[in-house]
């Protein structure tokens, strides 16, 4: 009993309550307290008085601290609860299991949307390419079509000349120097039209300084009907010349480019009478 009293009076219990003891001393105090009720009571008295002392010196923290600390603990609470709740029954299992499911659903949905988006983009690009191709082909077809339409229209026009009974076809023959040269002139006194058939034009090709000039002999005088070129490989054009109502003969001379006022007689290529 004396030992216990001495132990209490040594001050070790106060240091224990203040946390100012070594681990060995701590164990010793706890052991003594469990053995001797007097020591336990003494410890409790010291603790109670220190608690009251602290309560007297209490400082109320500001109101916002309550929320701040409780919130931080609730966050921690949530973290900590992940583990223990697994052992708990149904109610908590639902809470812990549901979120991952949702997460997965959105994850997959997102992935699916992304895949769909990529596929759509690919399809759109390929369709747009095809559309471009089709458009190009359409343009090519259109231009070909236009070309054919022009040709047909043109042919019709040419045929009209031959069909028209007012047109007379005059064949112009080569002069002695150019026996192989011939050409055709269509003349309609009624419509006052003179046409030459470029396709059937058998004349030597002229150079760039000279041009052929068509003349009509009216009352023994040459009348200018305009100039034309012989271009090798030219189209089947019917060229309309200057208007004329009356002519006895037609002739073609080779003249400087742009034509002359009077024909150069020694350059006469072909001639034909009406």
């Amino acid at each position, binding site marked *: 009993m004396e030992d216990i009293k001495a132990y209490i*009076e040594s001050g*070790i219990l106060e240091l224990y309550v203040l946390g*100012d003891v070594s681990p060995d001393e701590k164990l010793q105090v706890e052991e003594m307290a469990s053995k001797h009720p007097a020591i336990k009571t003494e410890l409790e008295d010291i603790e109670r*008085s*220190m*608690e*009251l002392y602290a309560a007297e010196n209490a400082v*109320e923290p500001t109101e916002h601290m309550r929320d701040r600390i409780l919130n931080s603990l609730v966050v921690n609470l949530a973290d900590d609860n992940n583990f223990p709740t697994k052992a708990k029954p149904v109610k908590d299992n639902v809470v812990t299991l549901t979120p991952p499911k949702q997460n997965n659903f959105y994850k997959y949905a997102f992935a699916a949307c992304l895949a769909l988006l990529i596929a759509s983009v690919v399809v759109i690009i390929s369709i747009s390419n095809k559309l471009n191709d089709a458009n190009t082909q359409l343009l090519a077809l259109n231009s070909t079509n236009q070309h054919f339409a022009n040709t047909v229209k043109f042919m019709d026009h040419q045929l009209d000349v031959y069909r028209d009974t007012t047109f007379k076809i005059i064949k112009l023959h080569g002069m002695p120097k150019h026996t192989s040269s011939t050409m055709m002139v269509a003349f309609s006194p009624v419509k006052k039209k003179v046409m030459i058939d470029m396709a059937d034009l058998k004349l030597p090709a002229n150079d760039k300084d000279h041009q052929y000039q068509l003349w009509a002999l009216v009352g023994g005088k040459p009348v200018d009907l305009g100039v034309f070129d012989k271009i090798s490989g030219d189209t089947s054009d019917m060229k309309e010349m200057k208007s004329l109502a009356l002519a006895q003969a037609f002739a073609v001379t080779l003249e400087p480019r742009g034509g002359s006022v009077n024909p150069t007689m020694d350059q006469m290529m072909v001639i034909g009478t009406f």
Partner: protein
Amino acid sequence: MSALKNREKIAVEALYDMYSSSLFGVISRIITDTATAEDVLQETFVKIWHSFSSYSTEKGRLFTWMVNIARHLAIDKLRSKDFKNQNKNQELENNVTFIDEQRNTVYKPELLGIKDLVQTLKPEQKLILELVYFKGYTHVEAADELGIPLGTIKTRLRMAILQLRKHFN
């Protein structure tokens, strides 16, 4: 208590409401800067919360366990490099008024004897309690500081606490 062990929210609130002012009082005595003291209070509750499983009623009162956690955290903070540097930057004058403004000490009606209590403690008893309880000195350090034998320190501490006990009884 069992609610605490099961970590229920209501237990946290009860714990806070019961002990926050007492703990904050102790922390505020150790750390004069209110913002830092508030940080320490929060750390204290977090630590209490996390290590609650290591507390057992057989080892003593809940408050003793909690206040020692608070004191350790506060004293660690006080001694940490950060805090020392921060303190150097604060002007003394500002500090004094600041502390006065922030110190809203709550005197509970039933404990109005506090002034008497302070009077009843002898100066050397107050000093030793101050050093060990609020400044984080070990009794060995306190003995060095005051140039008093260890035994005397222990006796004075015991006397101081006995005085408190007498007062509260």
